[in-house]
Protein backbone atom coordinates (compact mmCIF):
# COMPACT_ATOMS: atom_id res chain seq x y z
CA UNK A 1 0.00 0.00 0.00
CA UNK A 2 2.78 2.38 1.00
CA UNK A 3 4.62 1.52 -2.22
CA UNK A 4 1.56 2.32 -4.27
CA UNK A 5 1.15 5.66 -2.55
CA UNK A 6 4.83 6.51 -3.02
CA UNK A 7 4.74 5.71 -6.73
CA UNK A 8 1.43 7.47 -7.20
CA UNK A 9 2.91 10.59 -5.66
CA UNK A 10 6.03 10.26 -7.81
CA UNK A 11 3.82 9.84 -10.86
CA UNK A 12 1.74 12.87 -9.95
CA UNK A 13 4.86 14.98 -9.46
CA UNK A 14 6.38 13.76 -12.74
CA UNK A 15 3.14 14.48 -14.58
CA UNK A 16 3.04 18.02 -13.28
CA UNK A 17 6.69 18.64 -14.14
CA UNK A 18 6.27 17.13 -17.60
CA UNK A 19 3.45 19.50 -18.33
CA UNK A 20 5.21 22.49 -16.81
CA UNK A 21 8.73 22.07 -18.17
CA UNK A 22 9.42 23.21 -21.68
CA UNK A 23 11.19 25.87 -23.65
CA UNK A 24 8.15 28.10 -23.79
CA UNK A 25 7.31 29.51 -20.32
CA UNK A 26 4.20 27.95 -18.87
CA UNK A 27 2.31 31.21 -18.49
CA UNK A 28 2.41 31.85 -22.20
CA UNK A 29 1.57 28.25 -22.91
CA UNK A 30 -1.36 28.28 -20.51
CA UNK A 31 -2.90 31.40 -22.04
CA UNK A 32 -2.71 29.92 -25.49
CA UNK A 33 -4.14 26.66 -24.18
CA UNK A 34 -7.16 28.47 -22.79
CA UNK A 35 -7.66 30.19 -26.13
CA UNK A 36 -7.44 26.88 -27.92
CA UNK A 37 -9.90 25.19 -25.57
CA UNK A 38 -12.28 28.08 -26.04
CA UNK A 39 -12.03 27.70 -29.77
CA UNK A 40 -10.51 31.12 -30.29
CA UNK A 41 -7.52 29.66 -32.07
CA UNK A 42 -6.68 26.35 -33.70
CA UNK A 43 -2.92 26.71 -33.91
CA UNK A 44 -0.46 24.17 -32.56
CA UNK A 45 -0.21 24.34 -28.79
CA UNK A 46 2.88 23.02 -26.89
CA UNK A 47 0.85 21.85 -23.90
CA UNK A 48 -1.98 20.15 -25.75
CA UNK A 49 -0.08 18.94 -28.80
CA UNK A 50 3.30 17.93 -27.42
CA UNK A 51 3.62 17.83 -23.62
CA UNK A 52 0.32 16.10 -22.97
CA UNK A 53 0.72 13.42 -25.65
CA UNK A 54 4.30 12.84 -24.46
CA UNK A 55 3.06 12.38 -20.92
CA UNK A 56 0.42 9.88 -21.98
CA UNK A 57 2.95 7.95 -24.02
CA UNK A 58 5.43 7.85 -21.14
CA UNK A 59 2.75 6.58 -18.76
CA UNK A 60 1.58 3.94 -21.25
CA UNK A 61 5.10 2.81 -22.12
CA UNK A 62 6.32 2.66 -18.53
CA UNK A 63 3.29 0.68 -17.44
CA UNK A 64 3.42 -1.56 -20.53
CA UNK A 65 7.06 -2.53 -20.25
CA UNK A 66 6.93 -3.09 -16.51
CA UNK A 67 3.83 -5.29 -16.72
CA UNK A 68 5.15 -7.16 -19.77
CA UNK A 69 8.35 -7.93 -17.90
CA UNK A 70 6.49 -9.03 -14.77
CA UNK A 71 4.19 -11.30 -16.75
CA UNK A 72 7.04 -12.94 -18.66
CA UNK A 73 9.15 -13.43 -15.53
CA UNK A 74 6.15 -15.07 -13.91
CA UNK A 75 5.23 -17.24 -16.88
CA UNK A 76 8.77 -18.43 -17.43
CA UNK A 77 9.60 -18.53 -13.71
CA UNK A 78 12.84 -16.92 -14.69
CA UNK A 79 14.03 -13.63 -13.18
CA UNK A 80 15.97 -12.79 -16.34
CA UNK A 81 12.95 -13.01 -18.61
CA UNK A 82 12.13 -9.79 -20.41
CA UNK A 83 10.15 -8.72 -23.47
CA UNK A 84 13.07 -9.77 -25.65
CA UNK A 85 12.95 -13.40 -24.57
CA UNK A 86 10.39 -14.45 -27.15
CA UNK A 87 11.88 -12.29 -29.87
CA UNK A 88 8.95 -9.89 -29.64
CA UNK A 89 11.02 -6.73 -29.36
CA UNK A 90 13.59 -8.02 -31.89
CA UNK A 91 10.78 -8.68 -34.36
CA UNK A 92 9.32 -5.21 -33.96
CA UNK A 93 12.76 -3.63 -34.19
CA UNK A 94 13.67 -5.52 -37.37
CA UNK A 95 10.36 -4.55 -38.96
CA UNK A 96 11.06 -0.89 -38.23
CA UNK A 97 14.60 -1.13 -39.63
CA UNK A 98 13.21 -2.65 -42.84
CA UNK A 99 10.67 0.17 -43.07
CA UNK A 100 13.45 2.74 -42.72
CA UNK A 101 15.58 1.01 -45.35
CA UNK A 102 12.69 0.87 -47.82
CA UNK A 103 11.72 4.44 -46.84
CA UNK A 104 8.12 3.33 -46.40
CA UNK A 105 7.82 5.53 -43.32
CA UNK A 106 7.52 8.49 -45.66
CA UNK A 107 4.24 7.18 -47.09
CA UNK A 108 2.17 7.72 -43.96
CA UNK A 109 2.92 8.35 -40.27
CA UNK A 110 1.06 5.14 -39.40
CA UNK A 111 3.46 2.88 -41.28
CA UNK A 112 6.20 2.94 -38.67
CA UNK A 113 4.08 2.14 -35.61
CA UNK A 114 2.09 -0.47 -37.52
CA UNK A 115 5.26 -2.20 -38.59
CA UNK A 116 6.52 -2.27 -34.99
CA UNK A 117 3.31 -3.87 -33.78
CA UNK A 118 3.04 -6.17 -36.78
CA UNK A 119 6.63 -7.32 -36.41
CA UNK A 120 6.08 -8.14 -32.74
CA UNK A 121 2.97 -10.20 -33.48
CA UNK A 122 4.48 -11.95 -36.44
CA UNK A 123 7.43 -13.18 -34.46
CA UNK A 124 5.25 -14.23 -31.55
CA UNK A 125 3.23 -16.29 -34.00
CA UNK A 126 6.37 -17.78 -35.53
CA UNK A 127 7.85 -18.71 -32.15
CA UNK A 128 4.61 -20.21 -30.93
CA UNK A 129 4.00 -22.04 -34.20
CA UNK A 130 7.48 -23.53 -34.20
CA UNK A 131 7.04 -24.66 -30.62
CA UNK A 132 3.69 -26.29 -31.35
CA UNK A 133 5.27 -28.12 -34.28
CA UNK A 134 7.81 -29.56 -31.88
CA UNK A 135 4.91 -31.12 -30.00
CA UNK A 136 3.17 -28.86 -27.53
CA UNK A 137 4.33 -25.60 -26.04
CA UNK A 138 6.15 -26.38 -22.81
CA UNK A 139 8.09 -23.53 -21.31
CA UNK A 140 11.56 -24.82 -22.14
CA UNK A 141 10.69 -25.18 -25.80
CA UNK A 142 9.25 -21.68 -25.89
CA UNK A 143 12.31 -20.14 -24.28
CA UNK A 144 14.73 -21.96 -26.54
CA UNK A 145 12.76 -21.22 -29.69
CA UNK A 146 12.33 -17.60 -28.64
CA UNK A 147 16.03 -17.14 -27.99
CA UNK A 148 16.90 -18.85 -31.27
CA UNK A 149 14.52 -16.68 -33.27
CA UNK A 150 15.61 -13.56 -31.42
CA UNK A 151 19.27 -14.34 -32.16
CA UNK A 152 18.43 -14.88 -35.80
CA UNK A 153 16.57 -11.60 -36.03
CA UNK A 154 19.33 -9.65 -34.31
CA UNK A 155 21.89 -11.24 -36.64
CA UNK A 156 19.80 -10.32 -39.66
CA UNK A 157 19.42 -6.78 -38.41
CA UNK A 158 23.18 -6.53 -37.90
CA UNK A 159 23.68 -7.81 -41.43
CA UNK A 160 21.35 -5.13 -42.78
CA UNK A 161 23.07 -2.38 -40.81
CA UNK A 162 26.47 -3.56 -42.01
CA UNK A 163 25.28 -3.75 -45.62
CA UNK A 164 23.97 -0.23 -45.45
CA UNK A 165 26.79 1.20 -43.35
CA UNK A 166 27.72 3.63 -46.11
CA UNK A 167 24.25 5.13 -46.04
CA UNK A 168 25.02 7.25 -43.03
CA UNK A 169 21.68 9.09 -43.18
CA UNK A 170 19.88 5.76 -42.81
CA UNK A 171 22.21 4.70 -40.00
CA UNK A 172 21.62 8.05 -38.27
CA UNK A 173 17.85 7.63 -38.54
CA UNK A 174 17.95 4.10 -37.16
CA UNK A 175 20.31 5.12 -34.37
CA UNK A 176 17.98 7.95 -33.33
CA UNK A 177 14.99 5.61 -33.31
CA UNK A 178 16.73 2.79 -31.50
CA UNK A 179 17.74 4.69 -28.38
CA UNK A 180 14.16 5.64 -27.57
CA UNK A 181 13.18 9.30 -27.58
CA UNK A 182 10.22 11.35 -26.44
CA UNK A 183 11.00 14.30 -28.68
CA UNK A 184 8.12 15.43 -30.88
CA UNK A 185 5.58 12.85 -29.83
CA UNK A 186 2.09 13.73 -30.99
CA UNK A 187 -1.48 12.55 -30.64
CA UNK A 188 -0.86 10.19 -33.54
CA UNK A 189 1.54 8.25 -31.35
CA UNK A 190 -0.96 8.30 -28.51
CA UNK A 191 -3.73 6.92 -30.70
CA UNK A 192 -1.37 4.28 -31.96
CA UNK A 193 -0.35 3.08 -28.53
CA UNK A 194 -3.30 3.70 -26.24
CA UNK A 195 -5.76 1.04 -27.46
CA UNK A 196 -2.99 -1.55 -27.45
CA UNK A 197 -2.00 -0.59 -23.93
CA UNK A 198 -5.58 -0.64 -22.66
CA UNK A 199 -6.25 -4.13 -24.04
CA UNK A 200 -2.84 -5.44 -22.98
CA UNK A 201 -3.10 -4.15 -19.41
CA UNK A 202 -6.71 -5.27 -19.01
CA UNK A 203 -5.74 -8.73 -20.19
CA UNK A 204 -2.83 -8.97 -17.76
CA UNK A 205 -5.00 -7.69 -14.91
CA UNK A 206 -7.70 -10.25 -15.74
CA UNK A 207 -5.30 -13.16 -15.40
CA UNK A 208 -3.62 -12.20 -12.13
CA UNK A 209 -5.16 -15.10 -10.23
CA UNK A 210 -4.06 -17.53 -12.91
CA UNK A 211 -0.53 -16.18 -12.74
CA UNK A 212 -0.51 -16.83 -9.00
CA UNK A 213 -1.58 -20.42 -9.61
CA UNK A 214 0.87 -20.89 -12.48
CA UNK A 215 3.65 -19.80 -10.19
CA UNK A 216 3.28 -23.22 -8.54
CA UNK A 217 4.36 -24.87 -11.75
CA UNK A 218 2.71 -25.89 -14.98
CA UNK A 219 1.51 -29.28 -13.77
CA UNK A 220 0.19 -27.94 -10.50
CA UNK A 221 -1.64 -25.17 -12.34
CA UNK A 222 -3.31 -27.68 -14.63
CA UNK A 223 -4.17 -29.78 -11.63
CA UNK A 224 -5.88 -26.83 -10.01
CA UNK A 225 -7.97 -26.11 -13.10
CA UNK A 226 -6.00 -23.50 -15.02
CA UNK A 227 -6.08 -23.95 -18.78
CA UNK A 228 -2.38 -23.27 -18.93
CA UNK A 229 -1.97 -23.20 -22.72
CA UNK A 230 -4.89 -20.82 -23.20
CA UNK A 231 -3.88 -18.48 -20.39
CA UNK A 232 -0.26 -18.47 -21.48
CA UNK A 233 -1.17 -17.74 -25.11
CA UNK A 234 -3.46 -14.90 -24.12
CA UNK A 235 -0.86 -13.42 -21.82
CA UNK A 236 1.72 -13.61 -24.62
CA UNK A 237 -0.71 -11.78 -26.87
CA UNK A 238 -1.13 -9.12 -24.22
CA UNK A 239 2.65 -8.83 -23.89
CA UNK A 240 2.98 -8.48 -27.67
CA UNK A 241 0.38 -5.71 -27.62
CA UNK A 242 2.16 -3.91 -24.81
CA UNK A 243 5.65 -4.25 -26.28
CA UNK A 244 4.54 -3.51 -29.84
CA UNK A 245 2.74 -0.39 -28.69
CA UNK A 246 5.80 0.81 -26.77
CA UNK A 247 8.07 0.19 -29.74
CA UNK A 248 5.68 2.06 -31.96
CA UNK A 249 5.43 5.09 -29.71
CA UNK A 250 8.90 5.45 -28.23
CA UNK A 251 11.35 2.97 -29.69
CA UNK A 252 13.56 0.61 -27.71
CA UNK A 253 13.73 1.15 -23.97
CA UNK A 254 16.08 -1.63 -22.99
CA UNK A 255 16.25 -3.12 -19.53
CA UNK A 256 13.14 -1.40 -18.27
CA UNK A 257 10.95 -4.47 -18.60
CA UNK A 258 13.66 -6.53 -16.91
CA UNK A 259 14.42 -4.30 -13.94
CA UNK A 260 11.14 -2.70 -12.91
CA UNK A 261 9.36 -5.97 -12.04
CA UNK A 262 12.24 -6.89 -9.74
CA UNK A 263 11.92 -3.60 -7.90
CA UNK A 264 8.17 -4.07 -7.62
CA UNK A 265 8.56 -7.65 -6.45
CA UNK A 266 10.99 -6.67 -3.73
CA UNK A 267 8.58 -4.05 -2.49
CA UNK A 268 5.30 -5.89 -2.84
CA UNK A 269 6.03 -9.59 -2.97
CA UNK A 270 5.00 -11.99 -5.68
CA UNK A 271 1.22 -11.92 -5.33
CA UNK A 272 0.22 -10.87 -8.81
CA UNK A 273 -3.04 -9.41 -7.58
CA UNK A 274 -0.97 -6.62 -6.06
CA UNK A 275 2.19 -6.90 -8.16
CA UNK A 276 0.62 -6.10 -11.52
CA UNK A 277 -1.13 -2.90 -10.37
CA UNK A 278 2.11 -1.84 -8.66
CA UNK A 279 4.04 -2.46 -11.88
CA UNK A 280 1.59 -0.25 -13.74
CA UNK A 281 1.98 2.63 -11.32
CA UNK A 282 5.70 2.17 -10.67
CA UNK A 283 6.54 1.71 -14.36
CA UNK A 284 4.65 4.82 -15.33
CA UNK A 285 6.14 6.83 -12.46
CA UNK A 286 9.74 5.76 -13.04
CA UNK A 287 9.77 6.25 -16.81
CA UNK A 288 8.08 9.64 -16.51
CA UNK A 289 10.59 10.65 -13.83
CA UNK A 290 13.53 9.57 -15.98
CA UNK A 291 12.22 11.74 -18.78
CA UNK A 292 11.78 14.68 -16.42
CA UNK A 293 15.38 14.23 -15.24
CA UNK A 294 16.68 14.19 -18.80
CA UNK A 295 14.87 17.43 -19.52
CA UNK A 296 15.60 19.19 -16.24
CA UNK A 297 19.33 18.52 -16.39
CA UNK A 298 19.48 18.85 -20.17
CA UNK A 299 21.28 15.54 -20.54
CA UNK A 300 21.53 15.53 -24.30
CA UNK A 301 24.09 12.72 -24.28
CA UNK A 302 21.62 10.33 -22.77
CA UNK A 303 18.33 9.00 -24.02
CA UNK A 304 15.57 7.24 -22.12
CA UNK A 305 16.77 3.90 -23.45
CA UNK A 306 20.39 4.44 -22.44
CA UNK A 307 19.47 5.90 -19.03
CA UNK A 308 17.25 2.95 -18.20
CA UNK A 309 19.97 0.55 -19.40
CA UNK A 310 22.56 2.24 -17.18
CA UNK A 311 20.20 2.20 -14.22
CA UNK A 312 19.30 -1.40 -14.91
CA UNK A 313 22.92 -2.46 -15.07
CA UNK A 314 23.72 -0.77 -11.76
CA UNK A 315 20.66 -2.33 -10.21
CA UNK A 316 21.72 -5.81 -11.23
CA UNK A 317 25.22 -5.35 -9.90
CA UNK A 318 23.73 -4.32 -6.54
CA UNK A 319 21.47 -7.32 -6.73
CA UNK A 320 24.46 -9.60 -7.23
CA UNK A 321 26.17 -8.20 -4.17
CA UNK A 322 23.07 -8.71 -2.09
CA UNK A 323 22.36 -12.19 -3.38
CA UNK A 324 23.38 -13.76 -0.06
CA UNK A 325 19.82 -13.29 1.05
CA UNK A 326 17.22 -15.99 0.62
CA UNK A 327 15.88 -16.13 -2.93
CA UNK A 328 12.30 -16.91 -1.84
CA UNK A 329 9.91 -14.05 -1.32
CA UNK A 330 6.77 -14.01 0.75
CA UNK A 331 3.26 -13.44 -0.53
Amino acid at each position, binding site marked *: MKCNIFFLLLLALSCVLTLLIGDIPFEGVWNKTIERLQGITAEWNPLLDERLPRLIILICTGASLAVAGAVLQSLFQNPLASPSILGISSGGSLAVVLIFILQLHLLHPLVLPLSAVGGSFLILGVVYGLTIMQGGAPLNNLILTGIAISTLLIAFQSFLLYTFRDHWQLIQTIAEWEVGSTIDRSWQHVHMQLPLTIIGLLGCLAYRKEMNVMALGEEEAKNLGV*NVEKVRWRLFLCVALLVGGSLAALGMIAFFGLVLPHIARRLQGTDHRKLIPLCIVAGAAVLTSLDVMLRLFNLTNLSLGSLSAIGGGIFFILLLFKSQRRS*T*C*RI
Partner: protein
Amino acid sequence: MALILKNLSYNNLIREITISYKPGSLYGIIGPNGAGKSSLLKTVTGIWQPTSGLVEWNGKDLLKQPREEISKTISLVPQNPQLQFDITAYEMAALGRYPHHEKHLHSLAVERGLKHADAWHLKDAFLSELSGGEKQRIYIARALTTEAPVILLDEPMTHLDLRHQLDIWKLLRQMAEQGKTVIAAIHDLAAASRHCDELQVIHQGRSLTYGPGPAVLTDKLLKEVFGLLRNEISF
Protein backbone atom coordinates in the same frame (compact mmCIF):
# COMPACT_ATOMS: atom_id res chain seq x y z
CA MET B 1 -20.33 -42.63 -9.90
CA ALA B 2 -17.31 -44.64 -10.94
CA LEU B 3 -14.20 -43.30 -12.57
CA ILE B 4 -13.53 -45.62 -15.48
CA LEU B 5 -10.27 -45.85 -17.41
CA LYS B 6 -10.62 -47.42 -20.84
CA ASN B 7 -7.46 -48.49 -22.63
CA LEU B 8 -5.69 -45.48 -21.31
CA SER B 9 -2.20 -44.99 -22.75
CA TYR B 10 0.47 -42.28 -22.59
CA ASN B 11 3.44 -42.81 -24.89
CA ASN B 12 5.12 -45.95 -23.56
CA LEU B 13 4.80 -44.98 -19.94
CA ILE B 14 1.19 -46.09 -19.59
CA ARG B 15 -0.15 -48.87 -21.77
CA GLU B 16 -3.84 -49.63 -22.25
CA ILE B 17 -4.96 -49.51 -18.69
CA THR B 18 -8.60 -50.38 -18.13
CA ILE B 19 -10.07 -50.22 -14.66
CA SER B 20 -13.08 -48.91 -12.79
CA TYR B 21 -12.63 -47.00 -9.53
CA LYS B 22 -15.77 -47.01 -7.39
CA PRO B 23 -16.76 -44.22 -5.04
CA GLY B 24 -16.38 -44.71 -1.32
CA SER B 25 -13.25 -46.87 -1.74
CA LEU B 26 -9.60 -46.39 -0.99
CA TYR B 27 -7.40 -47.69 -3.82
CA GLY B 28 -3.68 -48.26 -3.65
CA ILE B 29 -1.61 -48.21 -6.83
CA ILE B 30 1.54 -50.21 -6.25
CA GLY B 31 4.48 -51.15 -8.40
CA PRO B 32 8.25 -51.00 -8.52
CA ASN B 33 10.15 -47.79 -9.27
CA GLY B 34 9.50 -46.59 -12.80
CA ALA B 35 6.46 -48.77 -13.20
CA GLY B 36 4.31 -45.81 -14.14
CA LYS B 37 2.39 -45.04 -10.95
CA SER B 38 2.94 -41.28 -11.04
CA SER B 39 2.55 -41.30 -14.82
CA LEU B 40 -0.84 -42.97 -14.43
CA LEU B 41 -2.01 -40.36 -11.94
CA LYS B 42 -0.86 -37.47 -14.16
CA THR B 43 -2.52 -39.01 -17.19
CA VAL B 44 -5.79 -39.60 -15.36
CA THR B 45 -5.91 -35.95 -14.26
CA GLY B 46 -5.13 -34.79 -17.80
CA ILE B 47 -1.88 -33.09 -16.79
CA TRP B 48 -0.38 -35.35 -19.41
CA GLN B 49 -2.64 -35.70 -22.42
CA PRO B 50 -3.21 -39.46 -23.07
CA THR B 51 -2.10 -40.72 -26.45
CA SER B 52 -5.05 -43.08 -26.60
CA GLY B 53 -7.95 -44.31 -24.51
CA LEU B 54 -10.17 -42.24 -22.30
CA VAL B 55 -11.14 -41.43 -18.75
CA GLU B 56 -14.86 -41.79 -18.37
CA TRP B 57 -16.89 -39.99 -15.76
CA ASN B 58 -20.62 -39.81 -15.69
CA GLY B 59 -20.74 -41.35 -19.14
CA LYS B 60 -18.54 -38.64 -20.69
CA ASP B 61 -14.90 -38.48 -21.69
CA LEU B 62 -13.67 -36.40 -18.79
CA LEU B 63 -10.44 -35.22 -20.40
CA LYS B 64 -12.34 -33.61 -23.24
CA GLN B 65 -14.13 -31.33 -20.79
CA PRO B 66 -12.85 -27.82 -19.98
CA ARG B 67 -9.91 -27.82 -17.60
CA GLU B 68 -11.99 -26.38 -14.78
CA GLU B 69 -14.51 -29.22 -15.00
CA ILE B 70 -11.73 -31.79 -14.82
CA SER B 71 -10.31 -30.10 -11.74
CA LYS B 72 -13.70 -30.04 -10.09
CA THR B 73 -13.89 -33.79 -10.64
CA ILE B 74 -10.36 -34.99 -9.95
CA SER B 75 -7.81 -33.40 -7.68
CA LEU B 76 -4.21 -34.57 -7.39
CA VAL B 77 -2.15 -34.22 -4.24
CA PRO B 78 1.37 -33.92 -5.65
CA GLN B 79 4.51 -35.61 -4.46
CA ASN B 80 7.06 -33.15 -3.00
CA PRO B 81 6.00 -30.00 -4.84
CA GLN B 82 8.75 -27.38 -5.02
CA LEU B 83 7.64 -23.90 -4.13
CA GLN B 84 9.22 -20.89 -5.82
CA PHE B 85 7.86 -18.66 -3.10
CA ASP B 86 6.42 -19.03 0.40
CA ILE B 87 2.71 -19.04 1.03
CA THR B 88 0.45 -19.50 4.05
CA ALA B 89 -1.44 -22.72 4.62
CA TYR B 90 -4.75 -20.94 4.20
CA GLU B 91 -3.72 -19.43 0.86
CA MET B 92 -2.46 -22.79 -0.38
CA ALA B 93 -5.71 -24.48 0.58
CA ALA B 94 -7.67 -21.63 -1.00
CA LEU B 95 -5.99 -22.27 -4.37
CA GLY B 96 -8.15 -25.35 -4.58
CA ARG B 97 -11.14 -23.05 -5.09
CA TYR B 98 -9.81 -21.78 -8.42
CA PRO B 99 -12.19 -23.85 -10.59
CA HIS B 100 -15.17 -22.65 -8.59
CA HIS B 101 -16.72 -19.26 -9.27
CA GLU B 102 -19.12 -19.02 -6.34
CA LYS B 103 -17.06 -16.56 -4.35
CA HIS B 104 -19.47 -16.56 -1.42
CA LEU B 105 -18.75 -20.24 -0.80
CA HIS B 106 -14.97 -19.98 -0.94
CA SER B 107 -14.13 -19.23 2.68
CA LEU B 108 -16.54 -21.84 3.96
CA ALA B 109 -15.10 -24.50 1.68
CA VAL B 110 -11.53 -23.65 2.66
CA GLU B 111 -12.37 -23.77 6.34
CA ARG B 112 -14.13 -27.07 5.89
CA GLY B 113 -11.22 -28.55 3.97
CA LEU B 114 -8.65 -27.44 6.52
CA LYS B 115 -10.72 -28.72 9.41
CA HIS B 116 -11.37 -32.01 7.71
CA ALA B 117 -7.64 -32.42 7.20
CA ASP B 118 -7.13 -31.43 10.82
CA ALA B 119 -5.04 -28.46 9.74
CA TRP B 120 -7.20 -25.49 10.70
CA HIS B 121 -4.80 -24.59 13.51
CA LEU B 122 -2.04 -24.21 10.89
CA LYS B 123 -3.90 -21.81 8.65
CA ASP B 124 -1.73 -18.76 9.26
CA ALA B 125 1.59 -20.56 9.17
CA PHE B 126 3.85 -20.37 6.12
CA LEU B 127 4.48 -23.67 4.40
CA SER B 128 8.22 -23.40 4.91
CA GLU B 129 7.61 -23.47 8.66
CA LEU B 130 5.63 -26.73 8.60
CA SER B 131 6.82 -30.30 8.95
CA GLY B 132 6.44 -32.84 6.18
CA GLY B 133 3.31 -34.32 7.66
CA GLU B 134 1.72 -30.95 8.22
CA LYS B 135 2.48 -29.90 4.65
CA GLN B 136 0.89 -33.09 3.39
CA ARG B 137 -2.25 -32.24 5.35
CA ILE B 138 -2.37 -28.81 3.72
CA TYR B 139 -2.15 -30.32 0.25
CA ILE B 140 -4.86 -32.78 1.13
CA ALA B 141 -6.91 -29.88 2.50
CA ARG B 142 -6.43 -28.16 -0.84
CA ALA B 143 -7.74 -31.24 -2.61
CA LEU B 144 -10.72 -31.25 -0.27
CA THR B 145 -11.52 -27.58 -0.92
CA THR B 146 -11.90 -28.39 -4.61
CA GLU B 147 -14.81 -30.61 -3.47
CA ALA B 148 -13.72 -33.07 -6.14
CA PRO B 149 -15.28 -36.50 -5.78
CA VAL B 150 -12.05 -38.18 -6.87
CA ILE B 151 -8.82 -37.55 -4.97
CA LEU B 152 -5.52 -38.85 -6.28
CA LEU B 153 -2.40 -38.87 -4.14
CA ASP B 154 1.12 -39.39 -5.43
CA GLU B 155 3.27 -41.07 -2.78
CA PRO B 156 1.64 -39.21 0.11
CA MET B 157 3.75 -41.02 2.72
CA THR B 158 7.16 -40.03 1.37
CA HIS B 159 9.45 -38.55 4.04
CA LEU B 160 6.83 -39.06 6.76
CA ASP B 161 7.50 -40.79 10.02
CA LEU B 162 5.23 -43.64 11.13
CA ARG B 163 3.02 -41.44 13.30
CA HIS B 164 2.31 -39.04 10.45
CA GLN B 165 1.84 -41.89 8.06
CA LEU B 166 -0.85 -43.39 10.23
CA ASP B 167 -2.53 -40.00 10.55
CA ILE B 168 -2.63 -39.65 6.80
CA TRP B 169 -4.00 -43.15 6.35
CA LYS B 170 -6.72 -42.33 8.82
CA LEU B 171 -7.57 -39.19 6.90
CA LEU B 172 -7.71 -41.08 3.61
CA ARG B 173 -10.01 -43.63 5.14
CA GLN B 174 -12.33 -40.89 6.38
CA MET B 175 -12.42 -39.36 2.91
CA ALA B 176 -13.33 -42.70 1.39
CA GLU B 177 -16.03 -43.21 3.96
CA GLN B 178 -17.49 -39.87 3.00
CA GLY B 179 -18.09 -41.23 -0.46
CA LYS B 180 -15.01 -39.98 -2.28
CA THR B 181 -12.95 -42.13 -4.59
CA VAL B 182 -9.47 -42.04 -3.11
CA ILE B 183 -6.59 -43.39 -5.18
CA ALA B 184 -3.08 -43.29 -3.80
CA ALA B 185 0.20 -44.39 -5.35
CA ILE B 186 2.05 -46.19 -2.57
CA HIS B 187 5.51 -47.64 -2.17
CA ASP B 188 4.92 -49.47 1.07
CA LEU B 189 3.31 -52.78 0.08
CA ALA B 190 2.52 -53.77 3.61
CA ALA B 191 0.83 -50.53 4.50
CA ALA B 192 -1.05 -50.49 1.20
CA SER B 193 -2.26 -54.01 1.74
CA ARG B 194 -3.33 -53.16 5.25
CA HIS B 195 -5.15 -49.91 4.59
CA CYS B 196 -6.47 -50.01 1.06
CA ASP B 197 -9.71 -51.63 -0.02
CA GLU B 198 -8.17 -52.64 -3.32
CA LEU B 199 -4.72 -52.66 -4.79
CA GLN B 200 -3.84 -52.12 -8.43
CA VAL B 201 -0.46 -53.43 -9.52
CA ILE B 202 1.32 -51.45 -12.23
CA HIS B 203 4.32 -52.96 -13.95
CA GLN B 204 6.08 -51.53 -17.01
CA GLY B 205 3.15 -49.25 -17.64
CA ARG B 206 0.54 -51.97 -17.63
CA SER B 207 -2.08 -52.80 -15.04
CA LEU B 208 -1.27 -56.37 -14.15
CA THR B 209 -4.01 -57.06 -11.69
CA TYR B 210 -6.22 -55.46 -9.09
CA GLY B 211 -8.27 -56.52 -6.13
CA PRO B 212 -8.07 -56.83 -2.35
CA GLY B 213 -4.53 -56.84 -1.01
CA PRO B 214 -4.11 -60.46 0.07
CA ALA B 215 -5.59 -61.69 -3.22
CA VAL B 216 -3.31 -59.52 -5.31
CA LEU B 217 -0.04 -59.88 -3.46
CA THR B 218 0.64 -63.51 -4.28
CA ASP B 219 4.09 -65.01 -3.85
CA LYS B 220 4.44 -65.17 -7.60
CA LEU B 221 3.57 -61.53 -8.05
CA LEU B 222 5.86 -60.44 -5.27
CA LYS B 223 8.70 -62.37 -6.82
CA GLU B 224 8.14 -61.43 -10.45
CA VAL B 225 7.16 -57.80 -10.09
CA PHE B 226 8.95 -56.68 -6.94
CA GLY B 227 11.68 -59.26 -6.69
CA LEU B 228 10.66 -59.95 -3.10
CA LEU B 229 9.92 -62.99 -1.02
CA ARG B 230 6.90 -62.97 1.23
CA ASN B 231 8.96 -63.45 4.35
CA GLU B 232 10.88 -60.28 3.52
CA ILE B 233 7.80 -58.17 4.07
CA SER B 234 5.84 -57.93 7.28
CA PHE B 235 2.21 -57.67 6.27
